[in-house]
């Protein structure tokens, strides 16, 4: 007997879908196939048994079941395009290895950005007009304008579309949290401070704890590393940073020889935090953004200075990547600000009778100079890195 079930939002919470597939198997329904477009699952009646399911994403044409997974009796229950649903009929307690969650997390991240950015833009530009329209929709008497035929339907359709996007967005955030917490701990979060706020405040009053603020250090990370290493040598032990990464809290203690490393990644997955932590690096800070991830690592040493990167190619590539990113972001902005200043000055020369509004070009100039400073700083970082490597 065939049973068909439509689950339109199955891919936005894979853990829930996997559980549901497992429950269906216990009830005697084995997953036969599914339709990715209509989002319909097709089941065949079978004997009742426990099956563990794992939903995976992979490159088209590349099998998701590696040799080790096959050896552990994982098999593909369904594969189409980039999706695979792997199954294992052993007891959950007997399972030693599992398909990785990384590809699902990566897909969720891309989806979150591609839904979140247009939604934020929409919220920013359209909230007021939409509120007025909805108000007119429910209270037509209080509204001076009238609605064209069909406008009510299109307004409803638009609202439905926006709300379903919002719903998917919230589901994705929740699902991501579940996926990340599956292994018991969120690897991408620095360990909380050893001191509670009260002790911290008391130490600060006694002068044993100092707070230093450093802004825009990511444009020249090598300078920050140097500064932190010098502070440690003087006996100021960094013990935490704030969540924005601009405040550094030190305790006066023993001088230590520590290597600090700021690392820049476009994306960072669990494997990233795992490999550095198991290699003895301690994470002090990582910014919350999933794009352009800065992480501060440190390691104490005696003789040989440890390096996060043992090859020169990687070090230089990172510096170049970062420098290029800031040039691409800031140089066009600087040009726009220069154009705006010129435009303002020219207007005043064409219309000398109009009062010239000075604050505007001054704000533009200050912003332009600031962006220029960031660009020069990151260019300096790249040139210093290149020089260090070539020597």
């Amino acid at each position, binding site marked *: 007997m065939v049973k068909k079930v439509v689950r339109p939002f199955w891919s936005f919470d894979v853990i829930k879908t996997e559980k549901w597939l497992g429950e269906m198997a216990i009830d005697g329904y084995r997953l036969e196939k599914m339709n990715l477009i209509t989002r319909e699952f097709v089941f065949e009646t079978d004997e009742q048994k426990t099956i563990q399911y794992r939903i995976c994403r992979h*490159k088209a044409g590349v099998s998701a079941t590696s040799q080790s997974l096959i050896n552990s009796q994982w098999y593909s229950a369904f594969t189409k395009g980039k999706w695979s649903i792997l199954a294992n009929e052993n007891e959950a307690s007997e399972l030693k*290895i599992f398909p990785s969650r990384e590809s699902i997390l990566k897909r969720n991240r891309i989806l979150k950005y591609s839904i979140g950015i247009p939604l934020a833009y929409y919220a920013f530009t359209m909230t007021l007009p939409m509120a007025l329209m909805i108000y007119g929709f429910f209270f037509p008497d209080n509204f001076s304008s009238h609605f064209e035929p069909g406008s009510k339907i299109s307004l409803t359709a638009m609202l439905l579309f926006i709300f379903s996007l919002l719903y998917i967005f919230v589901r994705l955030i929740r699902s991501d949290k579940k996926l990340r917490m*599956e292994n018991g701990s969120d690897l991408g979060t620095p360990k909380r401070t050893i001191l509670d706020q009260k002790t911290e405040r008391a130490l600060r009053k006694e002068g044993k704890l100092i707070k230093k603020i450093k802004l825009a250090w990511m444009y020249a990370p090598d300078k920050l590393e140097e500064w932190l290493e010098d502070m440690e040598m003087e006996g100021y032990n960094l013990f935490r940073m704030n969540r924005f990464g601009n405040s550094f809290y030190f305790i006066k203690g023993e001088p230590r020889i520590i290597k600090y490393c700021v690392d820049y990644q476009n994306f960072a997955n669990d*494997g990233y935090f795992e490999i550095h932590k198991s290699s003895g690096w301690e994470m002090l800070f990582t910014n919350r953004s999933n794009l352009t991830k800065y992480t501060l690592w440190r390691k104490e040493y005696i003789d040989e200075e440890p390096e996060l*990167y043992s090859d020169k*190619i990687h070090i230089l590539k990172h510096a170049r990547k970062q420098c290029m990113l800031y040039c691409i972001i800031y140089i066009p902005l600087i040009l726009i600000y220069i154009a705006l200043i010129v435009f303002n000055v020219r207007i005043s020369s064409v219309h000398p009778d109009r009062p010239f509004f000075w604050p505007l070009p001054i704000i533009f100039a200050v912003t332009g100079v600031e962006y220029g400073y960031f660009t020069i700083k990151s260019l300096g970082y790249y040139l210093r890195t290149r020089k260090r490597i070539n020597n």
Partner: protein
Amino acid sequence: MDKVLKAFMPMTETAYYILLSLAQPRHGYGIILHVAEITNGRIKLGSGTVYGTLTKLQNKGVISIYSDEERRTVYEITDIGKQLILAEIERVKEIYLNAVRFEGDFHG
């Protein structure tokens, strides 16, 4: 397959030893330890270098990953990866044989 061979051959020493250590599936740190062991401590890979190389190899389908009991990432070579390392080993063998063959000429 040809694309992968073209992209990675000749391999850097780092990539070669990382892939060579995946004769059996390993954790990231396990790779670092194994490479240090088989090169008698000559190559001490930085974890950032290993992560960067593994990501690149994974994107090209040379290696795949799975999670172990503690949900830690384990890296495993794929069939494409096996073909790649075998092709590279052939190349290194040729280098070695020529090194042995002509070494004497430089000692005089």
